[in-house]
């Protein structure tokens, strides 16, 4: 390695080693020399004033480098980075699950473009609405209506569709099926909205019925219980559709499980919102408390403390020692100021004698 353009010791500055040893001196300073070379350098420096001065300088520089203030990441910064990374990974997963078509659609119709061209966006929406209104009834009548119960084939040779409101879904169907879309079909009247769930199994399948139907509930619960298999948007849709049925114990349990285990904070947040109507139930209250304590996402924790405060103000939650303890810890330690303040307010709502 050529470390210096100067060759003779006479022409070299006093702070540089002599040319014969320059590379080894330099590597010695960088602690990169083998033991034998190290000894040779030290021996040479004993007889060479210039190299001895150089090594002394190196030592001073090393000591000076110690005085450079080093920055240590705070626990808050690390936690914030981890939370944001989890969200980014969720987005990356969701994006890769959307497939090539979805990514292509994202690329050609980004939200920013629509924002920048409001007139064009409005025209596009009108066109989409018109097309959907004109063609979707034809499409549905084409794919849903079977000619006989069970496996059917449309008259013009289109792929067969199983209509599972007629054929009950079994465990095998559920294990192998992939939910590709959930549609809400409302006739605008008082009747409960109809739900259509498109399943991609060995044969295409369409489950339809109202949310009050048990086979629809069974399918939506399956999505929540096996959340790792389904996209976040399908999971969110399932949570939303089950929201009116939170009085059902199975639904409550599934939503509590979502709060504890779903990887996506948006899904956990929706589950907490859905459960808030049943927060007086013990298992629901525990799930909300767990979210308040353990959830890495501040948005989810905020939803949890909001629910608890509302309950406390309505007198729907007993002020037991565990609850007060958890709230007190949050009031002291939570990284979010809002959660700290709300925790203190919730304790006050539980027990006005408690002072902060």
């Amino acid at each position, binding site marked *: 390695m050529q470390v210096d353009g100067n060759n003779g010791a006479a022409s070299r*500055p006093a702070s540089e080693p002599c040319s014969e040893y320059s590379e080894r001196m*330099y590597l010695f300073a960088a602690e990169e020399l083998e033991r034998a070379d190290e000894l040779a350098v030290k021996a040479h420096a004993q007889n060479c004033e210039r190299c001895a001065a150089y090594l002394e300088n190196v030592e001073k520089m090393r000591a*000076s480098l110690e005085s450079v203030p080093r*920055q*240590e990441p705070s626990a808050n910064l690390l936690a914030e*980075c981890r939370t944001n*990374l989890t969200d980014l*990974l969720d987005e990356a997963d969701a994006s890769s699950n959307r497939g090539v078509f979805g990514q292509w659609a994202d690329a050609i119709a980004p939200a920013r473009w629509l924002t920048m061209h409001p007139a064009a966006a409005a025209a596009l929406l009108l066109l989409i609405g018109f097309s959907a209104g004109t063609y979707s009834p034809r499409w549905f009548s084409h794919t849903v209506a079977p000619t006989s119960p069970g496996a059917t084939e449309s008259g013009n040779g289109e792929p067969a569709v199983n209509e599972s409101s007629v054929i009950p879904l079994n465990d095998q169907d559920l294990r192998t099926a992939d939910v590709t879309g959930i549609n809400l079909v409302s006739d605008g009247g008082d009747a409960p909205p109809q739900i259509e769930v498109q399943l991609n199994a060995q044969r295409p399948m369409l489950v339809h019925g109202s949310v009050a139907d048990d086979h629809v509930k069974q399918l939506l619960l399956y999505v929540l219980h096996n959340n790792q298999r389904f996209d976040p948007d399908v999971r969110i849709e399932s949570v939303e559709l089950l929201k009116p049925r939170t009085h059902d114990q199975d639904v409550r349990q599934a939503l509590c499980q979502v709060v504890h285990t779903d990887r996506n904070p948006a899904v956990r947040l929706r589950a907490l919102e859905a459960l808030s109507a049943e927060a007086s139930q013990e298992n629901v209250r525990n799930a909300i408390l767990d979210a308040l304590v353990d959830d890495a996402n501040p948005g989810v924790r905020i939803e949890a403390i909001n629910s608890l405060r509302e309950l406390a103000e309505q007198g729907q939650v007993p002020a037991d020692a565990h609850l007060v303890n958890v709230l007190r810890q949050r009031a002291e330690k939570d990284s979010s100021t809002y959660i700290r303040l709300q925790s203190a307010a919730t304790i006050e709502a539980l027990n006005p004698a408690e002072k902060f």
Partner: protein
Amino acid sequence: MGMSVALERDARQAAVKISDDHALVRDAQAGDRLAFEELVRRYDREVLRLALNLVHRSEDARDIYQESFLRVYRNLHRFRFECSFYTWLYRIVTNVALDHLRRRSSRKEDQAPVSEEHEGSSRDFFDRQPESNAASNPERVVLGQELGQRIQQAIDRLSPRERIVFELKHYQGLKLRVIGEMLGTSEETVKNSLFRATRKLRASLDEMR
């Protein structure tokens, strides 16, 4: 004898760690998100510390952290176990940090040319520094802090690559060969970068007289 036993123990521990990492990488490559998150937690504090000491601003360090781990996640299927996961991770982190520093140094206020005429000064900055053991004297403690800030300013004026090499060598204690692997370059190139960084640092500090 004692030292060789300690070295063997360290080598064994390093081998176990690499093997653990590789098992996690295999699980993560198979789609196990928890395995990936475990890998993140093993190294993310070090990554954030490196980023923070290179860019000094929390927001910038956070950007480097996120972009690095996201790239790791997206490219994990390309990891072929030809080096340790740690080396591969740092290769990505240093690339992201380099891009970041280059973007910043393209701004005029961050450019800091080093005057060559001072490089050959016969009596440089470090010659003029008082002897060590500054802690015994409060005045020296203050002087030491001032010196630290001056050196930091001088380090900030190095080119992005020199800065990363200097950080990895002096503060992370890595060998030049390992730094070369991380930066995807030869050990010789790293040596030259470090040499240039040291010289510039001296010259830059000499200007601060």
